[in-house]
């Protein structure tokens, strides 16, 4: 976001106070892999996106929605519960949150190996540890799709 030094003190406190509430994950796992030009990439967003006719996210939802790779941008909507981030950018251009078109361009230019057939969306206001069961499930699905690189996009 804008630099902490540039935002009002009350907002700065809000964000910095959250640090004390974060869980300790211990040692950071780090999975090695092939060069980028050989990787298969999926996008996982926590923007609360979903296909228009899919189920909207309920408050605190820790499950995910599937975004098939052939979903037209016009079919993507957002049901994130937070009102504290900008939505006008997403309303104008999906790629500012979910850059699937940009990813396809990089794949066409051989800078990445391929783009996954499926992408996924969580709703970022969920309790942080509640995401783990669905994240484990998601990892299994990503492996079945041959994905070895996931881009995580918050709002």
């Amino acid at each position, binding site marked *: 976001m804008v630099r902490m030094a540039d935002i009002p003190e009350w907002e700065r406190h809000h964000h910095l106070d959250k640090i004390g509430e974060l869980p300790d994950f211990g040692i950071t796992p780090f999975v090695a892999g092939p060069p980028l030009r050989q990787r298969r990439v999926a996008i996982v967003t926590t923007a609360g996106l979903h296909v228009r006719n899919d189920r909207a996210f309920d408050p605190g939802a820790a499950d995910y929605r599937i975004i098939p790779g052939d979903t037209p941008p016009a079919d993507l909507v957002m049901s994130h519960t937070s009102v504290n981030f900008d939505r006008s950018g997403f309303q104008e251009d999906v790629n500012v949150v979910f*850059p699937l078109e940009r990813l396809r361009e990089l794949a066409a230019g051989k800078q990445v190996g391929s783009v996954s057939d499926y992408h996924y969306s969580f709703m970022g206001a969920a309790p942080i540890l509640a995401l783990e069961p669905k994240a484990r499930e998601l990892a299994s699905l990503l492996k079945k799709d041959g994905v070895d690189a996931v881009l995580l996009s918050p709002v």
Partner: protein
Amino acid sequence: MGALGHFLEREGIATSQISLIREQTAALKPPRALWVPFMLGRPFGAPDEPDFQRRVLHALLMLFERPTGPVLEDFPEDAPEGASHEAETTFACPVSFAKAAVDDGKLDAALKREIAQLAPWYDLAKKRRRRSTVGISGLGIEGAASHAASYLDSTPAAPYAGLSAGVALKRACDDLKAYYYEAVAAQPGNLKAGDIEHWFWHETTAARVFLAIQQVCLNSPDKSLLPLGRISLVPRSVQHALTEAKRQS
């Protein structure tokens, strides 16, 4: 977001994430993160800036080439001119929220008039963008307005589609806000995100309706409405400005 990086990587899936709040990401230590100096809600910088978005995406992807981690790198560019939020200045000012000359008892009718006035701009926005993000409630914009405005009466409309009162009202209000945001963005002036937010909260009847609904939610015996009263209807910046204005009056 940092938690998902840990969870997926533990299962053998490599991840690279955008960081919007560097200090939180530094504390969580996810495997790979690219901090970007962009406003919340715009992790790839700015809409309709494909070259810029591509540079952010490329920098994010390049973190997969790092041999060890955790990695927290800073993206060196600010978002393109015209993408600034300006909330710091707009909401630092005292607010009146009273520009629309409407009695509180007639907010319902005024809201419907305002929606009708915005309709040509909403239609234009939808035509230009070939999409609209309105539709979460499934009620249509008039239905969403009626549902929300019913909370100004003593007998709010019943929830729909098996939802709790709070979720149904939240979705109706989200549709209303999206309609207003998309409509005004089509008007002349090339409004920035902060301008749109300022306009909505300072100049529209809809904002007055939202603020009235917020009080209803805070005082309702229906606990599903409490989150709307507290956090998920009125942004922190607006709430802060209101509190300051009240303190100074």
